[in-house]
């Protein structure tokens, strides 16, 4: 029998029974024994194996596709191309962390007239065995007319650049469109104060340019999607997804089915970080099943994952920032050009809103451009857009601090956004823990320590992410033995069964172990938005809380039946004791939760509590990170010597999983900072589409990452939750850049700061 870690609760959570403790996650045993069923583990009777043929070119017109030889291969049951799908309209659908035109969703799933990136799907087959399916795609003849690829965001924005889409015009925030088609899908701008007056006031101004490479979410589980279309017109889909309802609402219109015909069962999911929100394989599996009348499973290999899913945007960014000699920031001008990949929809909007979010700067202008290029369509990746934009702004702020001779945490405190501060996009902060993170960082053993030795340096950076709310659904029944199965719409990507069950348990006054959380299909729970945006423990937890309150109310009514009194005279206490009025003899009447649970059947049947919430509020999260590095001057390799991550979690429901989110976010941020990049040649061929060459951090590349959880409860949540997943990926890159500058005096201007980039920069400085 495994037991929970017996670490003490924090000062903020001492008042709770369950929140702030570290119970064993409910799905844990299945995940350490190999029993947990991920999407690729599914095997149904008669199931066919699918395979996708992908474009070898970055930009080409499809002249013809001949599938006849593949169809003739024994064991092949169906071959499909874009032409086999119903024609998709340009209606805009909800795609989870964004929206997209349906026809572009379809074209990204399987190319129509043009292929727009290497790896773009062109055809798919279903066969009796996956080896046969692999052979079959080799037999499909595709004739291409090659077009010039557009691979750099700045090149793509130039007038006269080859166009990816003849029908794409630049949209502005006022709803207007450009006169001529363009690769720039949209331009947005946020302003505040008077930029020129602000810079006129500045005593020091620093301007820098940055380039960042596309980087992939890097989840260890490749994408999968299985489907079974039946003769009665119902379609089952099984997939490892962050959003079962998004899959339903994307696949249904692509096949011209009603959402009520489609049931999506979310399988266990092997990481996502935003990249498992869009559909890729599910519509193909569904159509192949429709053609064959049999269940079909599609899985990607790693090369396909890197070529054709994710990544986050590569960028070109320019930041000009002005300050007074005392460190007061007076003006900031931010230019962000983000690669969307082949279809519009980069995270530049979020990047723009986050760029200066930790600071109260009176005069600002932030311009953002969403630009299509011949690379895979970008997907959300952990705090989408913010690691790039805040890398640029935090880097310039660090250089200002250096120039002014002010401690980098001091300059942040001096300008920190606090309650009442308004961002350029108009949002005004409520209670936030921005300064509290900075203070905790200053007081940390790491910041208090000395760093010695040649080629070593220390850096610091701040991070901000919104967190979101929106729709979550839950219900729970009370068993006769007092256990409570909790049914959830949110897929569990990293421990949210536990964090939601704990909030239900806290509210009912029972233990986390007495709650049995289950993630179910789209027919079995109310609409629930994606597991993303750091929303699940916030909004899902709120649904769990409301579900528990519904149970409390119903149990008061049942106790009233037993005691033959008015329900308003019964009180469900936080100690899970239900108290009624004194009986005829004047004795107190009370029942424990368990005692009353045992009498539910005889007092009218078992009860189900339920809740559907849609929260438009959120609890903004801030983080302060400190890093020590050592740079090898001969090779340009950077070693992380020590890392401290401070973060305001609001309330840490399960602190071990909060720490895990912080440590995991840092690891991804360090990867983005030092190694991870999409390396294309001039023809648009991705040269490093494997996990050997797309170099993610290993256990040997990182030290222990010291987490410091700050808890400034979010007043807009029953338990003060803010959401924790995303903000920790933001500060690593600018903190590492500052540490490199501190170590060797070189200010890097690109991500990743790979050995090559550092050696080039070092040579240039010399």
């Amino acid at each position, binding site marked *: 029998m495994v037991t929970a*870690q017996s670490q003490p609760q924090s000062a903020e959570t001492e008042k709770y029974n369950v929140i702030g403790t570290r119970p064993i996650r409910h799905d844990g045993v299945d995940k*350490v024994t190999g029993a947990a069923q991920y999407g690729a583990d599914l095997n149904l009777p008669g199931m066919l194996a699918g395979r996708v043929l992908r474009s070898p070119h970055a930009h080409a017109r499809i002249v013809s596709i001949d599938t006849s030889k593949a169809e003739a291969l024994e064991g092949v049951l169906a071959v499909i191309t874009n032409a086999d799908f119903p024609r998709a309209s340009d209606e805009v659908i909800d795609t989870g962390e964004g929206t997209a035109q349906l026809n572009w969703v379809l074209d990204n799933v399987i190319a129509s007239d043009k292929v727009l990136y290497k790896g773009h799907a062109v055809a798919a087959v279903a066969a009796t065995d996956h080896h046969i399916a692999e052979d079959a795609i*080799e037999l499909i003849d595709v004739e291409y007319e090659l077009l010039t690829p557009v691979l750099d965001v700045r090149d793509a924005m130039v007038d006269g650049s080859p166009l990816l889409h003849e029908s794409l015009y630049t949209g502005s925030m006022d709803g207007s469109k450009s006169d001529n088609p363009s690769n720039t899908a949209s331009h947005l701008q946020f302003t505040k104060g008077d930029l020129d007056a602000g810079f006129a006031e500045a005593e020091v101004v620093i301007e820098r340019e940055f380039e960042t490479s596309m980087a992939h979410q890097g989840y260890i*589980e*490749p994408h999968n999607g299985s489907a079974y279309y039946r003769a009665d017109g119902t379609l089952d889909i099984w997939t490892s997804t962050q959003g079962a309802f998004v899959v339903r609402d994307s696949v249904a219109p692509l096949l011209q089915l009603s959402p009520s015909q489609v049931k999506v069962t979310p399988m266990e999911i092997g990481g996502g970080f935003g990249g498992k929100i869009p559909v890729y394989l599910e519509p193909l599996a569904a159509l192949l099943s429709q053609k064959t009348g049999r269940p079909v499973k599609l899985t990607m290999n*790693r090369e396909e994952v890197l070529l054709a899913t994710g990544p986050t945007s590569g960028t070109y960014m320019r930041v000009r920032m002005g300050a007074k000699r005392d460190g007061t920031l007076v003006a900031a001008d931010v230019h962000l050009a983000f690669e969307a990949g082949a279809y519009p929809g980069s995270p530049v909007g979020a990047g723009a809103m986050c760029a200066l979010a930790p600071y109260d700067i009176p005069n600002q202008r932030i311009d953002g451009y969403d630009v299509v290029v011949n690379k895979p369509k970008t997907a959300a990746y952990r705090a989408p857009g913010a690691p790039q934009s805040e890398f640029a702004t935090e880097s310039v702020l660090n250089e200002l601090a250096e120039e002014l001779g002010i401690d980098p945490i001091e300059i942040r405190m001096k300008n920190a956004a606090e309650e009442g501060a308004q961002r350029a996009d108009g949002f005004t902060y409520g209670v936030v823990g921005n300064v509290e993170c900075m203070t905790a960082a200053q007081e940390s053993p790491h910041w208090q320590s000395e760093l010695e030795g040649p080629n070593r340096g220390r850096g610091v950076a701040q991070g901000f992410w919104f967190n979101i709310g929106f729709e979550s659904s839950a219900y729970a029944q009370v068993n006769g033995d007092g256990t409570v199965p909790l049914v959830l719409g949110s897929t569990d990507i990293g421990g949210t069964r536990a964090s939601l069950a704990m909030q239900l348990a806290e509210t009912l006054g029972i233990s986390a172990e007495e709650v049995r959380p289950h993630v179910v299909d789209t027919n079995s729970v109310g609409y629930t938005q994606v597991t993303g945006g750091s929303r699940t423990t916030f909004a899902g937890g709120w649904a769990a809380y409301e579900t528990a309150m519904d149970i409390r109310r119903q149990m008061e009514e049942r106790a009233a039946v037993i005691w033959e009194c008015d329900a308003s005279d019964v009180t469900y206490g936080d100690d899970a004791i239900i108290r009624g009025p004194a009986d005829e003899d004047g004795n107190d009447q009370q029942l424990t939760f368990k005692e009353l649970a045992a009498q539910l059947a005889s007092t009218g049947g078992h009860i189900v509590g339920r809740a559907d919430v849609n929260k438009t509020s959120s609890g903004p999260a801030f983080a302060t990170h400190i890093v020590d590095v050592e740079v090898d001057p001969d090779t340009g390799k950077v070693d992380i010597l020590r890392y401290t991550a401070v973060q305001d979690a609001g309330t840490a429901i399960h602190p071990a999983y909060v*720490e*895990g989110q912080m440590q995991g976010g840092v690891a991804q941020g360090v990867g983005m900072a030092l190694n991870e990049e999409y390396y294309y040649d001039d023809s648009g061929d991705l040269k490093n589409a*494997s996990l050997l060459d797309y170099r993610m951090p290993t256990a040997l590349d990182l030290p222990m990452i010291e987490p410091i959880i700050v808890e400034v409860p979010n007043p807009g949540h029953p338990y003060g939750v803010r959401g924790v997943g995303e903000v920790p990926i933001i500060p690593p890159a600018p903190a590492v850049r500052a540490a490199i500058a501190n170590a060797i005096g070189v200010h890097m201007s690109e991500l990743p700061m790979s050995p090559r980039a550092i050696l080039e920069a070092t040579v240039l400085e010399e």
Partner: protein
Amino acid sequence: MTTTEHIVVNCTINGEQQVFLANERDSLLEALRDRIGLTGAKEGCNNGNCGACCVNMDGRIVNSCLVMAAECEGAEIRTVEGLASGDQLSPLQNAFLEQAALQCGICTPGFLVAAEALLEQNPDPSEHEIRYWLAGNLCRCTGYDKIIKAVQQAAGQSVV
């Protein structure tokens, strides 16, 4: 393209005698998952770079995606499904749960198999030795901290 041959393979998996018919192109990973129905070993990269498919073969940890099924004649293979005895989890499995050493859990089977082999060979490894040994297993969720601590706990070391 050639005609596919099938091969009868006899081996021991988690202590049980197994006979299965392998496609000559099957890797051990494919055979485990598709022919035998043991889906605990996962495919993460199919070219030996992520460790999600780690199994123990004749006392060595191997990436089962790089071993041909037909090579397994007579082999003794242990997978994540063989780590627990009945409903008794191994100390390492318990430590992974108690240290919260997994988030999504897809890499966990590979880490468990690899770490178990480490502790058999080196019952009291240093943090560096654990990191070095596990550098062939990628985890994208945890930043590795809690995995390292779980291995330390299973080795009987005090964990901060």
